[in-house]
């Protein structure tokens, strides 16, 4: 759908007219991310992160396909082939660092994108489907990132694979056979490494497919905006191109400055030195942790140290960890307030900040050693995390008195809305 005032695609060059008759791909692009897509005029920089996430996926696919030309997915030589990329392949060091730090950049961008969604309640009707597809993309990203981290076949790769596939062994009855089926053996080895490589190559294209659905679903109601008030008239919108292509272009420039600083000056800051030790099935590194972007969920996994009623602690931790993401699927129905934007919800806004702090605390604990003090903090923070989604949000939605909303986006921006007043 588009708004009735959207610009129409009118090719003038004979070649473009010909192409529009045979395969209207330029028309499709024009209507999706060109002058034919009207967007709220008041989007702030929080709305840059969808485009940035798309850029990160392209970055990962380009660098990843190139790395696959030099990498060998065999437990005997995988570690050495990564070192070969780092030392011998022309620009190999840059491509590998770009890919490894690209994964971190992708998660930074996507976390901001998600918490933007939390603050502005972007998950609310009529945009629930966009949100649900977004959570699916996030789950696919986590699977892809995990399998990619196994490929260098260092100590962290190996023990990460062992611990994460060990999660599945917590499932009653089928757990052990399921883990052996996933690994193709009793412990991570050549079979596991090979299939992880195959799937790590495949999943980004699945993500690209779900992103197309995510954007398709977005274009039905159109983008939300910082007021949360729906578009009423033409004066509320500007065409995507040139207004937001320019704004996104500026955001991309800032993003690239930060990304390149990390890539060229601190390429190993987010990695673990242990992963430069070849995989050894006989010795676990003293302090094993996943990559930083899994820390909050890892903290929740470790928070369960005692059996809970009849459920073993191990299964409970695994269930809680997956539930921490699955609860997002229910968000559109847990937050029942008709007001979207956090700017007009004073109580909700306070709890949003608390959720950000709580997630950061969980992340800090997830990256720390499994000591009593951090486990205790994780337990409190994990309890609060679930409390936020399952109890606080529904209660806040029902008792909160929101601030008065502007009549329209135009009024919010200009003070008056001459077109509709």
């Amino acid at each position, binding site marked *: 759908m588009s708004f009735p005032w959207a610009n129409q695609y009118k090719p003038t060059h004979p070649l473009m007219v010909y192409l529009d008759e045979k395969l209207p791909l330029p028309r499709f692009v024009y209507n999706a991310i060109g002058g034919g897509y009207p967007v709220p005029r008041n989007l702030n920089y929080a709305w840059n992160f969808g485009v940035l996430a798309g850029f990160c996926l392209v970055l990962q696919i380009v660098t990843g396909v190139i790395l696959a030309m030099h990498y060998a997915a065999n437990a005997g030589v995988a570690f050495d082939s990564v070192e070969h990329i780092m030392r011998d392949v022309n620009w190999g060091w840059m491509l590998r660092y770009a890919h490894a730090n690209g994964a971190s950049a992708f998660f930074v961008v996507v976390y901001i994108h998600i918490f933007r969604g939390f603050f502005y309640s972007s998950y609310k009707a009529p945009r629930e489907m966009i949100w649900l597809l977004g959570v699916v993309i996030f789950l696919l990203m986590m699977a892809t990132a995990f399998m990619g981290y196994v490929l260098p076949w260092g100590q962290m790769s190996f*023990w990460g694979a*062992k*611990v994460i*596939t*060990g*999660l599945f*062994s*917590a499932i009653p009855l089928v757990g052990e056979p399921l883990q*052996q*089926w*996933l*690994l*193709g*053996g*009793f*412990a991570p*080895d050549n*079979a596991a490494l090979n*299939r992880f490589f195959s799937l790590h190559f495949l999943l980004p294209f699945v993500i690209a497919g779900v992103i197309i659905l995510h954007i398709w679903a977005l274009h039905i109601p159109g983008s939300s905006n910082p007021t949360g008030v729906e578009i009423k008239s033409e004066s509320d919108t500007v065409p995507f191109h040139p207004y937001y292509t320019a704004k996104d272009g500026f955001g991309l420039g800032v993003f690239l400055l930060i990304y390149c600083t990390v890539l060229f000056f601190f390429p190993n800051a987010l990695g673990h030195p242990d992963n430069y030790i070849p995989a050894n*099935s*006989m*010795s*676990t590194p*003293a*302090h*094993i942790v996943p990559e930083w972007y899994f820390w909050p969920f890892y903290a929740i996994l*470790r928070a*369960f*140290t005692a*059996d809970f009623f009849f459920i*073993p*602690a*191990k*299964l409970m*931790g695994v269930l809680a960890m997956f539930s921490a993401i699955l609860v997002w699927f229910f968000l559109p129905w847990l937050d029942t307030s008709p007001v979207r934007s956090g700017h007009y919800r004073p109580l909700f806004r306070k709890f949003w900040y608390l959720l950000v702090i709580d997630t950061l605390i969980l992340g800090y604990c997830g990256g720390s*050693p*499994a*000591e*009593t003090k951090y*486990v205790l903090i994780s337990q409190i923070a994990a309890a609060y995390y679930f409390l936020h989604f399952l109890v606080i949000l529904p209660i806040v939605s029902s008792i909160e008195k929101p601030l008065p909303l502007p009549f329209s986006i135009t009024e919010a921006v200009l003070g008056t809305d001459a077109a509709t007043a």
Partner: protein
Amino acid sequence: MADVLKAEGTDGAGADASHDGVRRRDFIHIAAVSFAGVGGIATLYPLISQMSASADVLAESSTEIDVSAIAPGQAVKAMFRKQPVFVRNLTPAEIAAADAVDPKTLRDPQTLEQRTKTGKTNWLITMGVCTHLGCVPLGAGQGEVKGEFGGYFCPCHGSVYDTAARIRKGPAPKNLEVPPYEFTSDTVVKIG
């Protein structure tokens, strides 16, 4: 309704409709789609089964260890099915510590007797794989942390095992697994 049945009864009798309104073609449709469906599901089996451990991985591997050089209080790590096995020679004090615990109070109730061979209770042979998520616990190597119960300590998520390698604290649900093994002589143990 009656008209419809009558109509089918009259002109369908010779062509392709039986008296209950089911045409020959309906039967062919259901049969063809069912047959193709069964074939499709059957095709999935090899696609799923190929993921399971292959024959070379499954090939029975057994490990023989000479335990004569392991003094009381010492342990060695061996490899079985690409995973570590701990062979530990318990001291009398460690045995006493394990026996002093009432098994009923444990998360996975077992006595040291049940976890070792008769007459060889000092030989504690277990997988070196934490039953939580599969890390290798510390405590078998010289100078490694043994945890507060004097057995093994898993650094990944803080599970603590006692001198019978039973789970005492932390997230692991079970005692360290005792693999199938036998003493082929007084000094040689065969695992697997």
